[in-house]
């Protein structure tokens, strides 16, 4: 099996299956299946909070916020790493958002708006304040410090094996610095567009782009390092 000059060998069926799944999700099937890798709007993107949500009737605060509670809690839990603190963070976010809801422009992006409040509330929380110094340091990390792009990627087979270990991936995400973790949560988990992420984080889109690339490089590095450790540990036994 050869796709774009890559021989997948014995693991070809896995790759084909995966690419097909992606292609089906993307809705583009054909010779340019590659384009189907790119994220396309889906049902998740059009959940409450997206543009046009209040087209039929003016949505109340509760209508808008309740569908987002699982996302808000999940994000808060990742950021605070503590269940009680996550609950407090979401509750404080909701209280602040409700207080400022009069200033929210109907029809604009509620999800980005409330995630921005969540993020600002987190940054001024006890845990967030501790993370702030990391934010400053992170901004100083030069993108040039990243590994050479062509060398950093394992074969798709190895990649799949690593990524199938969900616990390893969760562990890798836990190792991310807060600024990198938050872009991964907003981009990959919440499926926000870069423009929306820039609104939440109050940074230029260029910064969002570089942080996402750095976050994924860091994840890959954590997974590779862990994989090597496991492999070495297994060999030594």
């Amino acid at each position, binding site marked *: 099996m050869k796709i774009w*000059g890559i021989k997948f060998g014995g693991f070809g069926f896995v790759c084909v299956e995966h690419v097909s799944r992606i292609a089906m999700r993307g809705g583009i099937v054909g010779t340019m299946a590659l384009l189907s890798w790119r994220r396309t709007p889906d049902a998740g993107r059009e959940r409450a909070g997206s543009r046009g949500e209040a087209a039929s009737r003016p949505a109340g605060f509760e209508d808008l916020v309740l569908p987002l509670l699982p996302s808000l809690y999940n994000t808060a839990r990742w950021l605070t790493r503590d*269940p009680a603190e996550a609950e407090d963070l979401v509750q404080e976010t909701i209280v602040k958002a409700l*207080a400022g809801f009069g200033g929210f422009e109907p029809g604009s992006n509620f999800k980005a708006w409330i995630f921005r*409040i969540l993020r600002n509330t987190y940054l001024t929380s006890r845990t967030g304040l501790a993370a702030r110094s990391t934010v400053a340091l992170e901004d100083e990390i030069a993108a040039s410090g990243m590994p050479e*792009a062509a060398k950093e990627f394992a074969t*798709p087979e190895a*990649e799949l094996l690593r990524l199938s270990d*969900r616990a390893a991936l969760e562990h890798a995400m836990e190792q991310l610095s807060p600024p990198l973790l938050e872009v991964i949560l907003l981009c990959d988990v919440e499926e926000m567009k870069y423009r929306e992420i820039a609104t939440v984080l109050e940074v230029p889109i260029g910064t969002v*782009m570089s942080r996402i690339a750095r976050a994924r490089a860091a994840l*890959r590095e954590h997974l590779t390092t862990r994989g090597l450790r496991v492999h070495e540990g297994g060999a030594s036994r």
Partner: protein
Amino acid sequence: MSEHLSAETVSAFVDGELAGDDLARAAQHVAECAACARRALSESLLERSTANAGHRYAMPEGFEARMQKAIAAQQNVPAEASHPSPAGRRAGWSHASLWGGALAAVLLVSTGGYVAHDLAMRNAHSSALVAETVDEHIAALAAATPQVISTDRHTVKPWFQGKLPFSFNLPAALPQDVTLDGANLVQLDGQPTAQLLFSIGKHHTSVFLRERDAVKSAGEASTIQYAERNGFHVEGFRSSAIDGLAVSDADPARLHDLALALEQAQGAE
């Protein structure tokens, strides 16, 4: 063949963030370059995997109900309860005066009771003012644009002419990394107030300026010097004519620098 795609471009390509020529260039390169095709595939696999792994924490049992209750509780609280009206507040202070009179009789026995009561009233009022100030700041954060958008003090200050019963000065030079973003006309504690919007670095900041005489005549004995609420820092300052409150989630030291600049500017010109 064109140069390899940068890490940012690969990410943007996989995330569907490229368009037009950028997309065409990236797609063509990926079609020709096995290394970049592998990177794009790897990026896509990683993105899908993190999306799955990231949905890690489900809401605890009863959490949604608790949030609904919290929303309902806040929505059912009349505005007057959370932010007493000026009239109500004045009545409260008259009441305090009566109490003060009664306590004055007891003063012969002990002055402690009155002092404690007076302090309690002041603290309660200061707390309500801090809450209202933070709420106004949050409302400004939520608003798409301020009522006047300008980084020029010569635009912002004149905008208030005829809108406020007092005038104020803006500093000629702001502290480092502080910019003026615009302003709003708001009511704070029942007083017409200039809400000046600044950025301290990336942190949005509001500075509320009110007429000192009006604040005094309202019976307000605000002595807010510094407070914290919902993660926001509130610093009070005053000149002979202006009563100010600065609110931000920025570093308190930097907020103080801005408050100081505003305070000093009131004596200038």
